[in-house]
């Protein structure tokens, strides 16, 4: 039953990664001698440091903001029977349905090109675009998960004297913990891989090598240095894997089917 999925996982996931790792050894533009020193050479690229600072800026400000916003909005939507609930969820979702390429141009027009052309705004603009396009789908998922919590459990909480905030903090959030963990991992991974937003703002000449993914893409497709591109991409994968491992080891993320909450 699982064979079709495994076949796709091997051919579209594991084999390409293996191929990429082997390819890193080949002599390339960044490392003429070849070998795994390519991993160190790409890190010595003067563009990588500032790109990592840009990513840390997004990770420090926008990712926590996205997590808090998604959870607060989902909890608020779930807390009361609100007439315009459906419409509000749709409104949050719509920015995420626009292809990123169009969203960047759209947001450039919304904030005004004088704002876009100001270098001090670029980080904020990229963060705002990824924020607006990123929260809607997670609100749909987290709202859906909150709707599934048993009414009996919540009523028991009310009987025990919980107010709405305590219901949310002590019952609802712990019950959807695995979904929250999943969201956190993917939001961080998406931020580490951010490519489209800065790439589409390249017409400003301020975001040419803004993120590590852009630099990796530049290696592979502009300098025809596939080894360098893959090496940098794999380095960027390390924090993701560490984070994923931490979640896997410290939560019940991978436990088999357990007794239902209902």
């Amino acid at each position: 039953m699982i064979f079709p999925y495994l076949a796709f996982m091997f051919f579209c996931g594991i084999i390409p990664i293996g191929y990429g790792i082997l390819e890193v050894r080949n002599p390339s533009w960044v490392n003429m001698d070849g070998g795994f020193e390519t991993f160190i050479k790409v890190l010595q690229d003067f563009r990588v440091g500032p790109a990592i600072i840009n990513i840390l800026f997004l990770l420090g400000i926008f990712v926590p903001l996205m997590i808090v916003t998604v959870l607060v909005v989902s909890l608020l939507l779930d807390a009361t029977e609100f007439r315009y609930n459906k419409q509000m969820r749709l409104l949050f979702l719509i920015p995420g349905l626009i292809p990123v390429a169009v969203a960047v141009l759209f947001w450039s027009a919304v904030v005004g090109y004088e704002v876009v052309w100001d270098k001090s705004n670029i980080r904020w603009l990229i963060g705002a675009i990824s924020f607006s396009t990123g929260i809607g789908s997670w609100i749909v998922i987290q709202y859906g998960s909150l709707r599934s919590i048993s009414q009996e459990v919540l009523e028991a909480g009310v009987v025990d004297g919980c107010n709405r905030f305590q219901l949310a903090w002590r019952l609802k959030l712990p019950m959807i913990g695995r979904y929250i963990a999943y969201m956190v991992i993917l939001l961080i991974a998406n931020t580490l891989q951010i490519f489209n937003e800065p790439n589409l703002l390249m017409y400003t000449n301020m975001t040419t090598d803004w993120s590590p993914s852009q630099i990796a893409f530049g290696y592979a497709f502009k300098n025809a240095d596939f080894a360098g591109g893959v090496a940098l991409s794999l380095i960027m994968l390390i924090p993701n894997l560490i984070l994923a491992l931490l979640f896997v080891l410290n939560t019940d993320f991978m436990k088999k089917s357990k007794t239902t909450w209902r």
Partner: protein
Amino acid sequence: MEIGAQRRNTRLIKVTLFLITLVASIPFLWILRDVARMMFAPIVYYDNGVFFTWLKNTSIFVFASMGISVASCITAGFVLAVLDVPFRRFLLFSTLATMLIPITAMAMPLYVMVDRLGLNNTLLGLILASSYFPFGAFLSYLYYSSVLPPDLVGMGRIDGLGDFGIYRHLGIPLSKSLISVVTFFAFVGLWNSYQLPRVLLAEPSKSIMSIGIEVFYGQGTTLIALMMVIPSVLLYLASQRTIARGIFSGAVKE
């Protein structure tokens, strides 16, 4: 009057009303059609209507990939959550790991593999390369590991169900909301996919919407945004009821 006859009459009245309203709104629909034509003409009639080729290619690509990915990832989620499968943790971690890899690292190896299969610059190559949907598989795994208690699976076993029987009689009936959510996110991801089609489809005549519309950037951005959003919004509205019912509504009430 019989209840059946009453229902038939009500249905007949509704259909008649609908048809009359439709006929009465023809002038208005005509105006809307002309307005839409005027608005979309620069896009629709660009380069001898290449837009329709992009639309056809996109439809084939999105629906084929979506069908394959949703079917495979929901089944995988069920197997990993409920059945005893060797290397379960490894498979789950691989799913998570492959999801975290930047597409930049994957694009070139996938290009080489598709090229070796002789499928470069074909929709089939793009469909196969895009049908792996680990996000959906992991979501399905989380879903099934939350809603399907071992007791229920055990009862299924006592009733003589095998692995496939449990999936068919327990897994699928419980997964309506899951299928809606996974289908919706698969559709949005494929409809808006950019980097992989860009690498795998070089010829403009074989391109898809998300790549093709690039030629209009800066000319009618809002209109393009509208065109690209409409299908996803319609799908969301169609699946909203099942999504709102709860992604992981359980199978047992205690």
